[in-house]
């Protein structure tokens, strides 16, 4: 059975940001179990944080061995850890990318060939998920705000769109995103903290949220103006939500 290419891009949320709210993490773990494994293989990439130890520890605390087969790859300590990065990534059900600096993330990934390995894994059906820098990286263009000012950064282009994250919490991102769109950046998606964009192939399949009020938007420049279209979203906290069965 061929597995579809899937990316779940969090505007913010998951164990890094929402202590006590596992909804988005549970959602991506649910996608990973579609592989048929009882304990899906989940690999954490903490690169955007500089492989911060405490971040890795938090990952293992949330993605426990009872629920999955967790691992991580530290690109700062390759003399230890997995020998063949590509092989390891291709054997996963879910790759979970942590937050931090997207410019640093892309620089280090390219130096180690992780970008190419991730593309192969994605095309083979390994689910890709991440928040913040771990969301921005999958898109053609991304609004990086981790450096004070918010500037466009060229991403890995798995998805042909642009992306902005933390759209509610960091007000400087929105005008910067709009300006970039008007300057010719391809249209795309913005997500607030607690909202996740689930792509199947290159198309948005659904928006899920861990917070009842979190929103995501389709954002395009149309005739010299930026149009923000709020997207229908499914709040994952309502257990009986029928859309979840889709």
């Amino acid at each position, binding site marked *: 059975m061929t597995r579809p290419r899937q990316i779940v891009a969090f505007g913010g949320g998951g164990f890094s940001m929402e202590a006590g709210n596992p909804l988005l993490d549970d959602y991506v773990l649910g996608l990973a179990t579609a592989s048929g494994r009882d304990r899906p293989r989940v690999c954490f990439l903490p690169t955007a944080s500089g492989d911060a130890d405490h971040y890795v520890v938090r990952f293992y605390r949330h993605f426990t061995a009872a629920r999955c087969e967790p691992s991580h790859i530290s690109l700062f300590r390759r*003399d230890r850890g997995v020998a063949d990065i590509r092989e390891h990534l291709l054997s996963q059900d879910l790759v979970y990318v942590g937050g931090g600096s997207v410019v640093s993330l892309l620089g280090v990934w390219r130096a180690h060939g992780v970008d190419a390995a991730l593309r192969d894994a994605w095309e083979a059906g390994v689910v890709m998920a991440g928040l913040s820098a771990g969301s921005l990286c999958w898109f053609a263009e991304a609004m990086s705000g981790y450096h004070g000012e918010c500037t466009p950064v060229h991403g890995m282009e798995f998805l042909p769109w642009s992306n902005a994250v933390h759209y509610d919490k960091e007000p400087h991102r929105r005008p910067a995103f709009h300006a970039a769109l008007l300057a010719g950046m391809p249209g795309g998606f913005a997500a607030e903290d607690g909202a996740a964009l689930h792509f199947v192939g290159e198309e948005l399949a659904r928006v899920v949220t861990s917070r009842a009020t979190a929103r995501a938007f389709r954002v395009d420049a149309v005739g010299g103006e930026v149009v923000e279209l709020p997207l229908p979203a499914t709040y994952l906290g309502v257990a009986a939500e029928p859309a979840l069965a889709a």
Partner: protein
Amino acid sequence: MPIVEFVGQEPTNSTLDLMWRSPREYGTASCTSASHRGRAVSPDRDECPAPSASQPGARRAGRVPTIFAMGGGGFTMEPENPALDEYVRGLAPAREPRICLLPTAGGDSEDQIRRFYTAFADQLCKPTHVSLFRLGAQLVPLREHLLSQDVVYVGGGSMINLLALWRAHGVDAILREAWQAGIVLAGLSAGSMCWFEHGITTSTGAPRAAAGLGFLPGSNSVHHDGEPARRPVFLDAVARGDIPPGWGVDDGVGLLFRGTRVAEAVTSRPGARAYRVHVVEGEVVEEAIEPRVLTLSVRVDPKTPLAVAELRALRAARQGRLD
């Protein structure tokens, strides 16, 4: 004056409480704030005018480009032995030099940053650090901050990541400018090899040759005694002509380059060596270089003006230390 005051500046992006600390949390108050606050007790202020924002490197005009490349040692590897770090501090003509740590190769590790502030807290200097993973926390622009330093101190870690990150953030070009302006570039391990044409890295696992920035001609291999697996790879690569001749450097040894020539070899560990590695009549040879052993015990050396010695004593007393 472009001194970075991180204290109290949380990143504006509230979202990731991932990994940011102010220097105060690293326990730096004794050095940083004492020197910033205490103009009245600083008889040793740098007499040069502060650089203007438009010409941050201007005041160093005429200084010789200087690189101090350590095979290992300093605050991360021998915290009980400050000889090399004191030597680094002394390379800057300023009496209370600005020393900026670039912990990039270690992924901006909290531990490395903390050790840096601890090590330089009881030296006369103004320590800061720049984290490329947490640039949002920085008040002063990267270029301006780096070019206002007297010393840029590069920590160890992954050489491949170090170079990838510097290039991604444009730091390589800034450091070239800093070097040419006479700002001392110092570093150990990855922070040593990065300056040469080639180094021997373990960034991807087993030791292998990797290209550096090429500020200095030749090659460099570090931990020549401490990590023996690097040595045969280094010698083979030089023998085959894959990389140019260069220097193998033991832990505790530093090579001082003025311009692109070795001016001095020093060590914090008696018995440690540096080696000139090159090919003679088809054979690779290691020519030992005997470094000058740095002495530690005398805190007040003849070069230290009395006022500085007094200030040091005062600080030591404040910290409850008997010197």
